């Protein structure tokens, strides 16, 4: 109630007038009432009423915060957080080694960044995750939906359909092996059509469309409350050209990162971003580093770097608050006849491969 007038979220002109008239605290405003206010500073009664309602809401919010707990605050004890984290699901990638180094899979409520050289498999992994997030809970998934924001145009529907088909088949195999009632029930709704219908695809062609889409994302997620994964494939591409003002770029990127953190937390979803690699010239050598600069490195909670070592693809966990830095080899496979594929799926839980079933 003792809140300073200058800190209230009113329009600047109104604030200036209030300060000029000598008002100092919110309490004074509320005591004056709308009619008195309108006479004193020369605004209409409706405007005065509106301003007072804003002030009252703000003060109520403040009071709730000091009293220690409404939904808008993010205060809780570490024990509550621990319980939350332990019951939280992961989005598995179907590559056991990758899931291991990530501590179980892609975590919800965190931002994961995947950097890599061209052609290394970033979009493939994103498509895989968009399918895996929909796996029903009885199979170990999170039963969510996915938002796919594409800035590079590399999303191939056919490939996503192949991955979805393989995933459904994998779940069918598990159901056959275990023969449980809820498995079979879940399988009825888990089909290629339903998987593809729950991937919401946005194609953003420049950074303005990307910014606009992220501004609208909270509303979209409130309408589609089952979304558990937001993928932005190619966060670097729209920001890497046509930007003379690098400080503007840094500011926009930081704003974007903040909004994504809020989205991840409020809607309990995982945010996955893919980044490019760029060449940095050193003294007498050149190195590949993730694009968008040093400050962007702080945006993501978990950073995975995919790279090549001769002919082997490797994934390195570069940054994580809870897991150790490590590197694992992986492959993107093409399995051909149906029989062989089933073998590969069973094997994958003990081996180090990303197996993406596909028919040629």
């Amino acid at each position, binding site marked *: 109630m003792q809140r300073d007038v200058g800190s209230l979220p009113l329009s600047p002109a109104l604030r200036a007038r209030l300060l000029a008239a000598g008002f100092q605290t919110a309490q004074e405003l509320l005591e004056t009432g709308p009619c008195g206010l309108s006479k004193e500073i020369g605004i209409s009664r409706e405007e005065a009423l509106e301003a007072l309602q804003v002030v009252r809401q703000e003060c109520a919010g403040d009071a709730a915060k000091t009293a220690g707990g409404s939904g808008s605050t993010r205060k809780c004890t570490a024990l509550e957080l621990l319980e939350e984290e332990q019951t939280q699901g992961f989005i598995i990638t179907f590559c056991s080694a990758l899931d291991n180094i990530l501590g179980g899979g892609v975590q919800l409520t965190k931002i994961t960044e995947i950097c890599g050289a061209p052609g290394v498999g970033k979009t493939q992994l994103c498509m895989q995750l968009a399918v895996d997030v929909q796996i029903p809970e009885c199979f170990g998934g999170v039963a969510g939906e996915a938002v796919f924001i594409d800035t590079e145009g590399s999303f191939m529907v056919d490939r996503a359909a192949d991955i979805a088909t393989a995933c459904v088949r994998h779940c069918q195999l598990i159901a056959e092996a275990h023969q449980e009632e809820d498995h079979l029930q879940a399988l009825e709704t888990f089909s290629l059509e339903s998987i593809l219908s729950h991937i919401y695809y*946005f194609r953003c062609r420049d950074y303005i469309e990307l910014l606009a889409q992220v501004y609208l994302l909270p509303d979209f997620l409130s309408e589609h409350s089952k979304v558990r994964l937001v993928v932005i494939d190619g966060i670097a591409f729209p920001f890497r050209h046509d930007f003379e003002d690098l400080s503007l770029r840094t500011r926009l990127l930081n704003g974007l990162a903040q909004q994504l953190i809020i989205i991840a937390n409020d809607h309990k979803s995982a945010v996955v971003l893919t980044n490019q690699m760029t060449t940095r010239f050193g003294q007498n050598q050149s190195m590949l580093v993730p694009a968008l600069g040093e400050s962007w490195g702080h945006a993501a909670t978990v950073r995975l770097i995919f790279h090549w070592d001769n002919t082997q693809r490797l994934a*390195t966990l570069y940054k994580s608050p809870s897991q150790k830095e490590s590197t694992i080899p992986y*492959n993107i496979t093409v399995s051909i006849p149906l029989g062989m594929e089933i073998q590969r799926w069973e094997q994958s839980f003990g081996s180090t491969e990303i197996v993406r079933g596909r028919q040629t």
Partner: protein
Amino acid sequence: MATKKLRRAKLSQELCERLSRYQITTCQDFLCLSLLELMKVTGESYRNVQKLLRKVSLACAPKMQTAYEMKVRRSINPSAAFLPTSLHSLDKVLHGGIPCGSLTELTSPPGCGKTQFCITMSVLATLPVSMGGLDGAVIYIDTESAFSAERLIEIAGNRFPTYFDSDEKLFCMTRSIHLYRELTCDSVLKRIKSLEEEIISKKIKLIIIDSVASVVRKEFDTKLQGNLAERSNFLARGASLLKYVAEEFSIPVILTNQITTSLSNGLAIPADLVSPAHDLSLSEGASGSGKKESACVTAALGNTWSHSVNTRLILQYHDLLTRQIVIAKSPVAPFSTFFYTVEKSGLVLQDGKNLSNLPWEGTNPALQTIQVRNTALGNALLKTTDETPGDTPSP
């Protein structure tokens, strides 16, 4: 769209006027400001500013489609998803051919067959759909003046003798190939910007730019300060314009690239995060000198360009007569190699020696080493020994 004027974003007239006093006229200007700046400029309260932001975002944001809708749309017209290259094994691995709606890049050392391939694709695009073509016109942007109309007729006549049985048909085909000679970066960019209108008016179904690298490398000397950034800028802008056109009209875009030599300081640097070629078993004389330098030939135009293209095909020399086509980067196809020769009818695959479905193979498409003529000749001479050419990707 970023340049949309604010009054079309359904903001009130007086608000637009007020904003234009601060030089904020487009959605781009509006969305780039922070909330506090917006409050100052519009004179509205925090909550109202957030509402305004949402309104303007609605005007700019893309439409949502589910993946299922996309699949349904594609399956209605399956033949329109690819342009078959008439090289059957290649088409099979690529799931149909050159994909429509994305950028395909063709890289090779000089004289390997890029322009031949492009000319062949031009012919194919003009064929009717029943024969695997797209039944449309072609825009061919030539920066090297390498296009030969006589060769075009020769390829057409020899590859499809039953279809092009009369002069009339040949002339009809040549009439639908629109050739533009552009010699500077600026003119190429201008041409790309004008593509949207041309595609609609002339019913274009294929765009070929031969080659991107020649005009870029002529004008940007990367050793000079600042040129590298400008070059990347130009390439990124061109790539995004081409992607927009390709996706909007669902047509294939073929670009050709040249090669460059990338040097490295080999062993001292950890192999993983570093760009240089890790192929130490490279070309002649690399290890003999005792220096830690090794050079290799890779696609030009750098790393960022490798990110921008969706599919990358590499043509390289194998021995005196045969050459190889390598699928280095593709979202649907694994790493594969095919042998071919260049004949009267264009490129001809040599069956039987092809290696596809190599699930574990692959290298960084930006650093894929390419075999040039000297190494090919050298290898042909050394064919008697068991020495495998160190930089060939195929096993």
